Each structure stands twice: as C-alpha cells, then as structure tokens.
C-alpha cells in the first residue's frame, strides 16, 4: 500500500487533501449551523463563471474563480441579508447566471480546454505544487480570521438579533463569513469539483454535529473526518480505477448514512432506557 507514496502526484494529492479538509471542516461547520447550504452551493456553481473568465483572459482559472467566487459571495450574502423570505429565489438565479457566464466565456475562448472537467468534477491527482501554495495561503487567512472573530461569528450564527443589539457588526461579519465560504469553495473545487463541493463541505460537519455539541470540537472532528474521507476515497479510486472526486463524496455519503443510523439507534435505546427507569 505504501508504494503509492513514492509518486510525487500522490504526495501532492495527500497534501491537498489535508489542506482542503482543514478549510472545509472549519468553514463547513459555519455553513451547517447557519443553514446556508443552498447559498454556499450557489457560490460554488457561480464560481464557474470565474473559470470561464480565466480561460477567456488567458489567466490561471483558479485566480478567475477566486475573483468570481468572492464577488458572488458578496452579492448572494447581501441578497440573503436584505431580502428576507424570498432570498433563495434570487440566489438560485445568481447560481445559474454564474454558470451561464462561464459557459459563454468558454465558448468564446479559443483552443482545446482539456482540463475543464477538472474544475467540474475535481482531480485531486492533478494538483500542482503551485496550487498547494495557494491552498496554504487561503488556509492561513481562514484560520486567522476565524480565530480572531470566533466569539462574534458564533454569536451572529446563534442569535443575530441579540448580537446586533449588543453592537456586534453583524452585517460586516456575515459578509466576511460568506467570503470565507467563497475561498473554501475555490480550494475544495480542486479536489471534488465545483458540482460536489457542497457535499464535502457539509457532510463532515453534519456527522460531527450528531456526536458533539461544542463548536470547536465540531470543527476539529469535521477536519479529521474530512481527511479520513479524502484519504479513503483517494485510495479506493487508485486501486479500483475510479474518479477520485466522486469516490471521496461516496465514502463521505456512506459514512453520513451510517452515523445517522447509529445516532437514531442510540436515541431509541436512550428513550427505551428512560421508559424503563420511569416504570
């Protein structure tokens, strides 16, 4: 099994898996507890516009994706804050427009777009060292901002009305959070593709949330689970010759299902025990 580590691309893949898992575990926790999965999915898909822009301008598509993703994060974040009930409609529209822009840009770009599928479905085995550097920088940004504003972010996630009343700058922090989601989306896109980004961001925190009731622990457990899923998925895809991104997502999906069943049966046993002690 260890022989696969002799390949440089495999070491890069594993490093990418760890780096992405750190961002996904931390930011995914906020996505899950704020219940903004749809918004985050919208940011992920709208980032495709940036890929197209990158090709069209002849710059690194990842750079285009970062710009587009931040812009759509701010746009969708503001819509979500200001329009109340029907914001999901507008977010859905922006989601589609972002993708459409990407496709049109690609139509207008000359040449053969060989690695386009990479951005849609991910390719952990094709992560170059330069992308690892980008991931490292983004992780540093994410971890510093989250640790600086940990209490404030927890407060606006739990009870934004109260946070507003005690003069926490709710709007600005919220926009910062969606921008961090945007950056995480761009990183995660390399691994599982923008179509499946949202699954890798939400499944590990969703599982962690079933077992721990502390936010820091939830983040830590999410990171560990995310690393575990990426490694397992990567190994399976290598030995079974399957698409890596999809395999990682399926591993996470199976784990989610199992932990859900474990949780249900634990609750049932607890309820039965309570009933017995009551009798």
């Amino acid at each position: 099994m260890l022989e696969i580590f002799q390949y440089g691309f495999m070491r890069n893949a594993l490093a990418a898996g760890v780096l992405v898992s750190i961002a996904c575990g931390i930011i995914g926790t906020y996505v899950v507890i704020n219940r903004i999965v749809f918004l985050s999915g919208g940011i992920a898909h709208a980032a495709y516009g940036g890929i197209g822009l990158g090709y069209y301008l002849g710059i690194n598509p990842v750079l285009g994706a970062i710009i587009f993703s931040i812009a759509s994060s701010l746009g969708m974040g503001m819509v979500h804050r200001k329009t109340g009930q029907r914001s999901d409609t507008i977010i859905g529209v922006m989601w589609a427009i972002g993708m459409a822009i990407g496709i049109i840009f690609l139509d207008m770009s000359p040449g053969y777009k060989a690695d386009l599928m990479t951005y849609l479905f991910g390719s952990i085995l094709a992560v170059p060292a330069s992308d690892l550097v980008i991931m490292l920088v983004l992780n540093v940004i994410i971890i510093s901002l989250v640790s600086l504003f940990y209490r404030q972010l927890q407060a606006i996630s739990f009870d934004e009305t109260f946070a507003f009343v005690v003069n926490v700058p709710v709007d600005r922090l919220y926009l910062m959070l969606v921008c961090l989601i945007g950056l995480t989306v761009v990183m995660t896109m390399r691994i599982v593709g923008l179509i499946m980004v949202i699954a890798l961001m939400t499944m590990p925190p969703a599982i962690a949330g079933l077992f721990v009731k502390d936010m820091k622990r939830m983040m830590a457990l999410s990171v560990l689970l995310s690393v575990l899923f990426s490694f397992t998925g990567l190994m399976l895809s290598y030995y079974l010759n399957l698409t890596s991104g999809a395999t990682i997502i399926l591993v996470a999906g199976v784990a989610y299902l199992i932990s859900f069943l474990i949780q249900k049966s634990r609750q049932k046993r607890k309820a039965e025990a309570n009933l017995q002690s009551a009798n």
Partner: protein
Amino acid sequence: MVNQDLTPKAVIETKNVWVSYDAQTVLEDINLTVNETDFIGLIGPNGGGKTTLLKALLGLIKPTSGEIRIMGKTVAEGRCYMGYVPQHIEFDRQFPIRVWEVVQMGLLGCRKPFAPLSSAEREVIQYALEQVEMDNLSQRAIGELSGGQRQRVYIARALVSNPQILLLDEPTASVDPQVAGNIYELLRRINQTVTIVMVSHDMNAVSSYVKTIGCLNRKLHYHGSKEVSKDMMEAIYECPIDLIAHGLPHRVLSSHESEGEKHA
C-alpha cells in the same frame, strides 16, 4: 437621596414616535418617559405593538418619525446600557453552543473584539449565572436545557453587561408557574438598581410584581401608576378574557363602569 426621588432621572424618552410597517401604523404617537428604577409592565392585545415598541427602543426597527433617547443618547449608543431578553425564540436545538458561551454574548459589544476573556469578565459571567441559578449547568449545550432554564440563561446574558435598563419580552411565556415566580422574584431583586420594562400577557404577574402598568394598543396609555384606568381598559378591551379569567385583583381596576357597560 431625597433629591433624587423628587427629580427622577429619565433613562428612556420617546417623543412622538410613530412606527408603520408598509402602510399599516403599528405605533401611534408614543410619548413615554421611563425613570430610573421604574418597573413598568406593558400589557395590551396581540398586535397592539408591544414587541414593536421594544424593538424600536433597541434600534431593531427605525421609527417612521419621532425620536428615541436612551440615557440621553441615540439608540445605537444608548443600547450599550440596556440588557435585552427576547421573546421565546425558535432555535436549532442542535446548535453547538454552551450555556457559558451564550451568556458571554452579552459582553461582546462593549469590549475589544480580539482580546481573550479577562478574569474579571469570567467572574462577571459566573456571577450572572449564579444570579439565575444556572452556574452548575454552565458547560451544558443550550439545546439540552428546558424552556425555563433557557429563559434564565437569556436573562443572565442580558445581565452580564451590567445594564442600567432591562427590556424583557414575555419572559415567562414558555415556563411553568413556579419558574415564572422565581423569575419575577429575581427581577424584583434586580430592580433595586436596574430599570425594567417588561412586556407580558401574564396579568397576575404584572399586577403583583411591577410598579407601574402601561397599556399599548397602537397608542400608549401610561400614567405612571399601577392603576388600570378606564381608557386603558377600553384599549385592552379587545382581549377581555385575559383580564377576567385570571381574576384580576380589584385594586388594580379604578372603575368597573366600563366593564359593566360593555358586558350589558
């Protein structure tokens, strides 16, 4: 001391405050002066604007016209002196936050955002939890608590910033009578130094714990006394069941004429 009693210090002042949602007027020409260590119970029918008035005082809603001053300052500055206990809120029971962290929220506004908690701040949180008798559950997740326990945590969160004014919106809506009694006793103790404005449906509580009663049905009927006057009766007449079913003590009512007339 005597001087202070003669000229009470106003902590909240509203002048000609109107609030409308779209075309509907919810609050009409509210003029309210709340003085230091007042304990005002606000009653009134559903949709009468009680919660809206609290929201306006907190800056959650901007009045359509009129002015609100808190401790002589604007709402955004003045709310630093206020503690707020919201109406029972629907929330995610899975939310990963501990009781201690919920109370800590009350401190976030008026401090440096990045500094770690000082030992003085830890003590203040501990003290607030002790006041509501929740210190032994400080490490519990908020979703594991009962409705009454959660309400006490929210009161601790409002107290932790050492407010001069406490605003409460139906603080006992979701708790059993015994817990409600404890909460009111606690409020009475706090009221020795803290001004309290409380919205409530609980007429018993309002009549036995508060110092003065105001009635809100679009317009505010408040005379700085505990008597429910004729105009207030008429204003709340839309929900007479509360008044009669709870066997409101007679001393609260100034006159029974209006009641008799309407019933006849």
